[in-house]
Every structure is written in C-alpha cells, then in structure tokens.
C-alpha cells in the first residue's frame, strides 16, 4: 500500500472517529447499559491449578506413616499385610511337608533293600523314585 493510500485510509479513520462523537444519547446510553450487563456476566477467575509430580508407591507409603490414619485406613493397610504373612507361612509349611515326604520315600526304599546306599547321594534320585512308582 502506497503512502498516499495510507494517508487516505487514516483520513477516513479520522472522519469515522469524528462521527462517533455525534452518536445520539439514546444510543450511547444503550451501549453503556449493554456494557454493564456484559460486566455483570463476566466469567469468574478460574482457581489456580498447580500440577505436582508425585511418586506413585514410595511417596504414598511414606505419607501413610507420616500422617495419622483413620480406622478405615489402618484396616486397609493391615489386611493386605496379614494376608501376605499368612501366605508366606503357608508356602513355608507346604515346602517343609514336601521335603519330609521325599525323605520318607527314600528311607522306605532303602529299608526295603530296593536301593543301594549310594542312592542317598544321587541328586537324580527323585526322578528314579517317580519312575518306580509308575
């Protein structure tokens, strides 16, 4: 756009600004009323939201011991711990029973003279016993 065109555009703008001053009072009053109505419906400021990184497990567990827990919170923590403890004891007992029964089988086989004494130290003896049972 040339400077002449720009000059023309700004003269038009000046003329339009002059015309604004001649707006009827009724119109300016209506505009003021509309402005007040708009301001009364202004969107309220939204509360500030801050995102904080949090450790999913370690931080959570740490919090549990930092703060006093409600009875429901204590119960929720105690039940899983109790279940895990019972489970570990059960697994230990089961393994013990398995070991005892294996030793009993070997003892029985040795006493009935089906086996040489060296079978005691044979690590693959369990497989042999299993084949024998079949």
């Amino acid at each position: 756009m040339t400077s002449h065109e720009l000059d023309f555009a700004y003269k038009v703008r000046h003329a339009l600004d002059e015309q604004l001053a001649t707006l009827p009072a009724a119109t300016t009053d209506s505009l003021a009323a509309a402005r007040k109505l708009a301001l009364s419906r202004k969107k309220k400021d939204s509360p500030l939201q801050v995102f904080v990184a949090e450790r999913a497990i370690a931080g959570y567990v740490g919090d549990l011991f930092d703060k006093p827990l409600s009875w429901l919170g204590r119960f929720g923590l105690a039940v899983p711990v109790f279940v895990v403890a019972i489970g570990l004891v059960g697994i230990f007992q089961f393994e013990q029973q398995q070991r005892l029964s294996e030793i009993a089988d070997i003892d029985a086989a040795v006493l009935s003279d089906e086996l040489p004494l060296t079978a005691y130290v044979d690590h693959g003896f369990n497989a042999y016993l299993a084949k024998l049972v079949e």
Partner: protein
Amino acid sequence: MATDKELSDFLENVERRAFKQAAFAVRNEAAALDITQDAMIKLAEKYGDKSPSELPLLFQRILQNTIHDYFRREKVRNTWITLFSSMSTESDESGDFDLLETYEAQGDFHGSESSADKIERDQVLTIIEEELQKLTSRQREAFLMRYWEEMDVAETAAAMGCSEGSVKTHCSRATHALSLALKARGIQL
C-alpha cells in the same frame, strides 16, 4: 487475566466503534445495538478471564461472527416471510401502503446522525459512512479492523479467518473503491 476494571475500560473503548461496524454491516440501528450487546456479553461470559492484550482480537472475532449470525437468521426469516406472503390473500396485498411511514423508517438511521445537515462537514462525514456501507462486507471488515481498530495484518487475518495476503488485497481494494466513490461525489480527502 483482565480485572473487572480492565474489561470495563476495554468495552467502553470499543463499544461505539463496534456499534458503528455492526451498523455499517446490517444498516439497522436497533439490530446493530443488539449485535454489539451480544458480542460484549459473549466476550465477558466466555473470555472474561483472558489477559487484556487478548481482548481486542477476541472481541473482533466475536463481533464479526455475531454479524454473520444475524445475516443467517435474517436469511431464514426472509425465507419464511416470502413463503407466507405468497400464501396470503389478495386483500392483504392490496392493503394500505403509507409511503411516508416507509420513508421515515428507512431514513431514521441517518437522520439522527445528519441532524446538522446544513453543515458541510457533517455531510462529508455522512457520505463517507454511506460509501463505507457500499463496500463488500469483506473489504469493509478488513479496512475497519486495520485502520480503525488499529489491528495488524496478522491479527486481522486471524479475526477474519483468511490469509494475510487476502487481508492486504481486501484493504487495498477497499481503499481504492472508497477513494473513487468519494471522488465521484466530489469529495477529496
């Protein structure tokens, strides 16, 4: 984030120009007032929490969209009016027609503005407004946003939803058309 005071000051600053922009587009004072009010309410309701620097562009977009919505509603309304008027009886069409009443209604908008119609300056200003109204809507939007609202090319393009090149073209054509029209009416700015 604009405070109530900042939003109020902004609206007070733009409301008259917005009204004029709407009036140039729809050529109806009452409708222009409604459009300006709707635009101000929409800005406050939906973007009242924006920063003051964002308000001018947002308001122009809302204003232009509200003007376009008005034309869409008018188009639908005119379709129904045409439909029903074609179904009306012969006696309705031959009803009383008061030329003076129609003439007053059309002349009302400019009548108040050119009340001091004996003063040459007022006549010139009125003619400028008339010629602005005769521009195409896109040319007028671009011209007013660039030179009256003092928006830059990028902001005007964003508000109009077109490229920056189109804005420059619209502005250039608007200036040429306006200059020629005013010259034809014996006005040299």
